[in-house]
Every structure is written in C-alpha cells, then in structure tokens.
C-alpha cells in the first residue's frame, strides 16, 4: 500500500513538472487512480510548447524522410540534432523575411523617437476557447512623448470614462461615482493598455523574439512577431512595415480567454490638442490615486542592509505560474508589495488559513524601501513578532512583475 501511495505521489509530481510519468504497475487500482489524477489536472489549462514546436515537427518529418529506416531505433524527437536542424530552419526563415528581428526592434525604437504624438482608436477583444469574440472596450487614445495622455472609453462597461495624465498625476471624469477607486474587471481605468512606448520596451527586453509571418491587417502590411517575455507567456505582435510601430497584440490563451488589442486607426500627430488635456474640476474631473501608481512608487530610505533574519524558501515554478496569472489579470494584489506582505504575515499568524478579516491590517504595514525590485515593509502590529518583511520581484523586474516574500525579521 505504501509503495502505491508513493507511486501515485510520484505520478502527480511528474504531471506537475510536465514530465512523462512512470506508469509501470500491476495494480489495476493504481492505474485507475492515475486516470483520476489526470482528469483532475485537466481542469487546468494545458501548457503549450515553445513557439518553434511546429518547426520541429516539420523538421523531424523531413529527417524521417531522409533517414535510412534501419538506422532509426527509438524515436527521440527532440534531440540535439533536431535542435540544430530547427535552428537552421528558423535561421533560413528569418533570412527570408529580412529584416531580422534585431533590425526590427531597432527600427521600432528609432521610429518611435521621431514621433511627437499619436492618436488612435484602440479596440480590445476577448476570445473564448470556443472561438467566440467579444468587444470588451473601444478607447480613443492620444499620447505624446512627454507622458501626457488622454483616454476616452467609447464602448464597453466604462463608456464615457475619460482619463487624463500629465505624466505625474492622473485625473478622471467618472461616469459614476462608484467607478473610481475600485479595482475594475478590465484595465482601462487604471492602466493605459497598449502604450506603444511600453510595447517597444517589452519587445526590447523580451527573452525571445521571432518573426513568424507577414500579414495584412486593417489594410496595412505587417510583420508578425512572437514575443516571449521574461517570465511570461508568449504573445503575438503585429508591426506595421511602413511605420515600424506595433498595431496589434494577441495574448496567449490563458484561463480559456485570449485578448486581442488593436489600433483600428492610428495617426501620427504633432501634439495632443490642448482642449483634451484641460482639466476642468468644475465638470467633475478628480485627481485619482490609481492602484498602479502606488505599486511603482519608489521609496529610498535609510534602512538596514538587505539581510533578513529568516530566509523564506521560494518555489520558482509556482512564482512563474503566479506571474502568468497576474499577467492575465488574476491576483492583481501580487503587484502590491504591501498586500503581499499582509497576506504573508497573516498566514504566519494563522497558518491554517485566513477567515474573515486579516489579523494584520494594511494600514499597519509601512513601505520603507522600494527600489522597484526590492522592497522592505515594516510591520507595526502587536499580534505578530515579525517586524520586517523583505520582498523581491523575482520573475520580472518592471511594474508588471509580481512581488515575492524572500525573508523577514523578528
């Protein structure tokens, strides 16, 4: 019995690690339990292979054709030889679609620097796994090089909402008092989505970029790029061949939803019209403290050197999964170091789980250091003997990176 318990546990570990499990057993009961474990795991989204997987398949089929049959023993599909062949194939393809990705990234940066401002109509669509499309929002977007922007929601649940930023402060003209300062389902009210500068930065900092196709969208010729960010899911980006600017972005399918963000229209402008940036508080404009701003606040104070008394062991696989979840809009609190610390300290007090209110209040935690990558939170609460919590952005070191507790003091 104990042996079967271990075998079942090992089987689950293999599935969790996306490895082929050892299923060798004479026990019919155990075989049945393997099947049950698989069924439970099927509630999760599948882990998709690397973007070059279809190329590997094709290359292997080609190799199959040329390899003498008797030389083939056990089929080891993803071996060193295949990798080399796939690299060659990709290299050949990339030469064919000249210019190279490096050239495109440079061209994107150069082109963007020349732009004073741009105006576009941005459409965000979601697609379910069954292929059902739904327009989430349409936004009128004006952005300039001085970090000013004007966003007006034209369609969607926040229709009429206007957001204006002068690069430091943000004002909103709400459609409803309750809309402001709540964490919305969709991002248009607290984060400017598909900011070209940010998209170009993301491509520049990506772990991997590959030109996979050429396509015409909205009457424009584009390069299709597959971008794999550091610690995130691969997404697709369409770059206008003429302007070298991103036009469309398609996220990976996650939690059975895929988002497509696209500029249906875009034009280069000299400036944002002044009337759009005018803040008229008598009309209801309010300065807002958007959650995202709070997250990236940089605080440098004299704190002890980074030397926690206790180190918290981190499972990077779980963190990667959490980052992916946060990227797709789940668990936005993971982007807030104070909230992450609050959950951590609360769980130290109540390891069996938190029921009702947190034993440590958000207000009892003070952010004393935040350089954007590392943060220290001071705990001012008598219920716990934890005095400081140390956090780091382990997966991605920008404003989209999640915070992880790596240590604490008592």
């Amino acid at each position, binding site marked *: 019995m104990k042996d*079967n*318990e*271990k075998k*079942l*546990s090992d089987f*689950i*570990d*293999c*599935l*969790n*690690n*996306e*490895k*082929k*499990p050892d*299923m*060798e057993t004479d026990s019919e*009961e155990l075989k*049945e*339990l393997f*099947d*049950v*474990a*698989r*069924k*439970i*795991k*099927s*509630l*999760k989204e*599948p*882990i*998709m*292979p690397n973007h070059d*997987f*279809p190329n*590997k*398949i*094709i290359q*292997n*089929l*080609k190799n*199959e*054709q040329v390899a003498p049959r008797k030389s083939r023993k*056990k*089929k080891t*599909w*993803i071996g060193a030889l295949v990798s080399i062949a796939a690299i060659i194939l990709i290299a050949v393809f990339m030469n064919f679609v000249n210019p190279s990705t490096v050239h495109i990234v440079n061209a994107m940066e150069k082109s963007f620097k020349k732009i004073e401002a741009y105006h576009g109509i941005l459409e965000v669509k979601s697609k379910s*796994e*069954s292929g059902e499309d739904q327009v989430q929002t349409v936004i009128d977007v004006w952005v300039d090089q001085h970090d000013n922007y004007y966003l007006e929601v034209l369609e969607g649940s926040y229709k009429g909402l206007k957001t204006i930023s002068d690069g430091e402060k943000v004002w909103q003209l709400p459609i409803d008092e309750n809309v402001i300062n709540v964490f919305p389902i969709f991002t248009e009210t607290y984060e400017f989505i598909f900011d070209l500068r940010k998209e170009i930065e993301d491509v520049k900092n990506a772990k991997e970029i590959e030109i996979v196709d050429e396509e015409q969208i909205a009457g424009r010729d584009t390069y299709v790029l597959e971008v794999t960010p550091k610690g995130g899911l691969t997404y697709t980006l369409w770059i206008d061949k003429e302007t070298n600017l991103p036009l469309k972005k398609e996220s990976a399918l996650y939690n059975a939803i895929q988002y497509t963000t696209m500029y249906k229209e875009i034009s280069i402008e000299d400036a944002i019209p002044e009337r759009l940036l005018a803040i008229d508080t008598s009309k209801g404009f309010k300065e807002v403290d958007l959650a995202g701003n709070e997250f990236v606040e940089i605080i440098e104070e004299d704190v002890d050197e980074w030397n926690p008394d206790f180190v918290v062991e981190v*499972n990077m*696989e*779980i963190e990667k*999964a959490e980052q992916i979840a946060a990227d797709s809009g789940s668990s936005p609190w993971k982007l807030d170091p104070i909230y992450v610390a609050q959950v951590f300290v609360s769980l130290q007090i109540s*390891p*069996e789980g938190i029921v009702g209110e947190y034993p440590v209040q958000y207000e009892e935690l003070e952010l004393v250091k935040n350089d954007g990558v590392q943060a220290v939170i001071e705990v001012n609460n008598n219920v716990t003997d934890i005095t400081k919590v140390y956090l780091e952005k382990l997966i991605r070191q920008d404003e989209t990176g999640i915070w992880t507790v790596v240590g604490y003091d008592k």
Partner: protein
Amino acid sequence: MNGEEFKSVEDICKHTWKPLYRYIYYKVQNQEETEDITQETYAKSLGYPKFKEIEPNKCIAFFKTVALNIIKDRWRQNKSRGTNIDIASIAPIENAVEDLSDITNEQLLIKSSLEQLNEDQGKVIELRILKGFSVSETANLLGKSEGNIRVLQYRALKNLATIMKKGGLL
C-alpha cells in the same frame, strides 16, 4: 519527397498542430508526452498511404484518432519500447473528436466530483494537483506530515474514482 509535397505537409502541420496538441494534452496531461505523441501522430498519419484521400476538413479528426490509438497503445504496453499502431485498422475515423461542449461537460462533472470530497481530501487535491504544490509544500501549508498527505491524496483519488464511476466519468 519534393519541395511541393513538403510545403503541403508544412501547411497541414501549421494548421492542425494546436488543436491536435491540445487534444493530446487533455488526455495525457503533461507536456513531454504530448510533444512526443504529437510528433508520432504526424509521422504515422502522413506515412499512411491513403492519407491523401482524406478530405482536408477531416484531417484533424483523423489525426486525433491516430493520436488516441497511440495513447491507448502506449498505456497498454506501458513500456518504453515504442508503439505499434496498425494505421489501416483505425480508419474510418473513430469517435475521437470530442468537441468543446463534451470537454466542458466532463469538466463540470469533475468539478462536481471534487466537491463531494471531505474538506481535508479536497484541500489536498486542490493543492497537489490543481495548484501543483509538492508533497512537502502541501504538508507545510496544511500543517500535516508528508506521509499524511500521501495517504490523504491516495484516499481522495480512490473516493473520486468511485464518484466518477457512478457519474460515468471512468
């Protein structure tokens, strides 16, 4: 194989690999085996002499059927000595093509099966399989020993097997 033929194989793969991969993954639930079986499915299917007679809109159904047979054969043999599918025997296409509604219904039944577990067992399954925690992490989170977690997960899956059998899932 000349260039023209290879181009068509390329097209077939590029247009069908995603649904095929997802179908196989749904069955085997790990990336390594899925990639392996996807590759093997193409090799066997495209090597089938009558493959060209299959209508393009039925290609994916054919691939899924071949994949399902490879999976069954592997699990039956349960060894690493490869598979031996008689490709001719699997045409015409079997009912391997579960549509999304079938999968959704099955998932609803699985969720409802999970809800019938007691709290401890449900929590262990959630942490171990749905959240992917290791035995030691699960033990820490639940304040139990690792041995206890293994026993709990074994019993939970046994209970689930009984529930699923009643619900026609197994």
